[in-house]
């Protein structure tokens, strides 16, 4: 039972994370390979603030605000780039942020990580049990789904798709493509931070090792495999992949196997990315009206 609750909580958190990346990749066509950086900003901000005795609500909001600000500042130079270049720039940002977290020991405790992050409490309710935490993260996931669905269904969302499909045409129609991309990037960053905050207060221990390229790949695979540019794609992807990822952890395997299992799992993830790109680039759920092969 505890295992199922744990799975559901992680799925809820990764659904938020994936939905946030989907706004960028699926709807705006921005290939953010440093998305985990914003997850980390949310996690560290809220963890550091609550550890120094500040209420969870403040930590949460500060995490979201800081991620949004960083997203804004990064997006201005990065968004002058297209496709591959944008990917490299964001990949670099993710690596730099990890370097900062690793080295600024006075702030982040470096590789030692931050233990004992308090469980969150909101309006006097403490979410310190698994069902309680599931209610919190599940509620947040539903809210994220609702908000982001509303965002992409609105004229703003249609403009994003227009920018993605044909930037020049969107510009001719009077849409400032650059501004739409910045807004999309900031929205994605803020919701990634929300996932990060929930993650930090769930595991109660974070360290730089939690925020590597591996996490970016997992969330990228969730979005791509589920179906980028769709509502349900990231949710389906999160359920399937988190189930696969987490259930392997609970198999009782001899210790010499577990050392090999991590890389093996990542190899499967890499292979899945390739297979989907070669055979079904649109993912499990295909975008309505989307062109095949996109």
């Amino acid at each position, binding site marked *: 039972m505890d295992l199922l609750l744990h799975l559901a909580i992680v799925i809820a958190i990764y659904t938020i994370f994936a939905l946030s990346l989907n706004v960028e990749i699926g709807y705006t066509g921005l*290939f953010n390979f440093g998305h985990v950086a914003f997850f980390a900003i949310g996690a560290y901000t809220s963890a550091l603030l609550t550890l120094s005795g500040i209420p969870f609500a403040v930590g949460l909001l500060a995490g979201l605000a800081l991620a949004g600000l960083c997203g804004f500042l990064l997006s201005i130079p*990065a968004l002058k780039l297209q496709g591959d270049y944008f990917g490299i720039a964001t990949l*670099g940002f993710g690596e730099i942020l990890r370097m900062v977290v690793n080295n600024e020991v006075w702030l982040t405790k470096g590789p030692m990580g931050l233990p004992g992050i308090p469980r969150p409490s909101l309006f006097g309710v403490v979410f310190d049990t698994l069902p309680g935490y599931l209610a919190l993260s599940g509620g947040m996931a539903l809210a994220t789904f609702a908000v982001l669905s509303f965002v992409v269904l609105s004229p703003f969302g249609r403009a994003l798709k227009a920018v993605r499909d044909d930037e020049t045409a969107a510009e001719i129609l009077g849409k400032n493509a650059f501004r739409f991309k910045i807004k999309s990037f900031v929205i994605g960053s803020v919701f990634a931070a929300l996932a990060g905050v929930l993650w930090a207060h769930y595991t109660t221990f974070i360290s730089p090792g939690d925020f590597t390229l591996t996490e970016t790949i997992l969330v990228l695979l969730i979005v791509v495999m589920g179906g980028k540019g769709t509502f349900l794609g990231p949710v389906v992807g999160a359920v399937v992949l988190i189930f696969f990822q987490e259930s392997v952890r609970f198999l009782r395997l001899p210790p010499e196997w577990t050392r090999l299992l991590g890389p093996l799992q990542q190899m499967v*993830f890499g292979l899945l990315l390739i297979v989907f790109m070669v055979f079904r680039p649109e993912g499990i759920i295909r975008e309505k009206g989307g062109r095949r092969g996109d």
Partner: protein
Amino acid sequence: MDPISYYLQTALNGVLAGCVYALFAMGLTLIYGVLNFVNFAHGELIMWGAYFLFLFMGEPFGLPLYAALPPALALTGCLGIAMDFSVFRHIRRANRLTLLIAAMGLSVFLRNAAQFFWGAEVRTYGLEVTAGMRILGLTLTTPQIAIIAVTILCVAAVYVLFFKSRLGKSMRALSDNLDLARISGIDTKRAILAAWVISAVLAGIGGILLALDTNLSPEMGVINLIKAFAATLIGGVGNLWGALLGGLLIGLAENLGVLFVSPSYKDGIAFVIMVIILLARPYVIIGERSD
């Protein structure tokens, strides 16, 4: 050490690092020029090149360094071809985002495959450390002399190949315009294959040199990909000599930069330079090719 030789030694270390980055960047920019996409798995060619040498020097082969080099580089070249055959040739006409994700997937696969076989820990080739030579008050070790010599050789070989041979001519034609090259009867398949082999071997040589001078780990690909990319951006994407120059500049900047910032941020300097270039010349790399 007196300050002047200290700065000179730092600059020399920068040039040494720069030589290696130049080799990475030339391979990366070559594939970009011919196939018009950034190979995100280029870092893994660097890393696997180093590990192939590790493989042949260790059990059960136990070859000495010089004997282990040819098979290691041959295997790296084959890995380059395998990348193209297994992934990229199937999505040649796909949009670039599809290419990008596929390359990312390939990179993850190869990085973790190395970790699967050799573990995540940092390794060395276990060669005896020899005392460095002292030239004009500067210290140079044997691997460092090898770095300079091999880089000069590689650059000369690339020059001859590209500007004096038929194959090089066809690759340059491809890089200008793929369709035009094809209809003028150039064997594009052969040229693309050659580009992959050269790119992979250059990456492998660079990876081996880097590992000889420092160490090797499955993670070495990612950070060196970023440096190679920064170097190609400095030199102008698709430009071989620009990549050489860019690599040297990144190496120098990194090593001299340590005089001003903490050495733990050394790896971040390339990224910062990259961002500054992009800010200063934001459209430098857009619209270079018309197809």
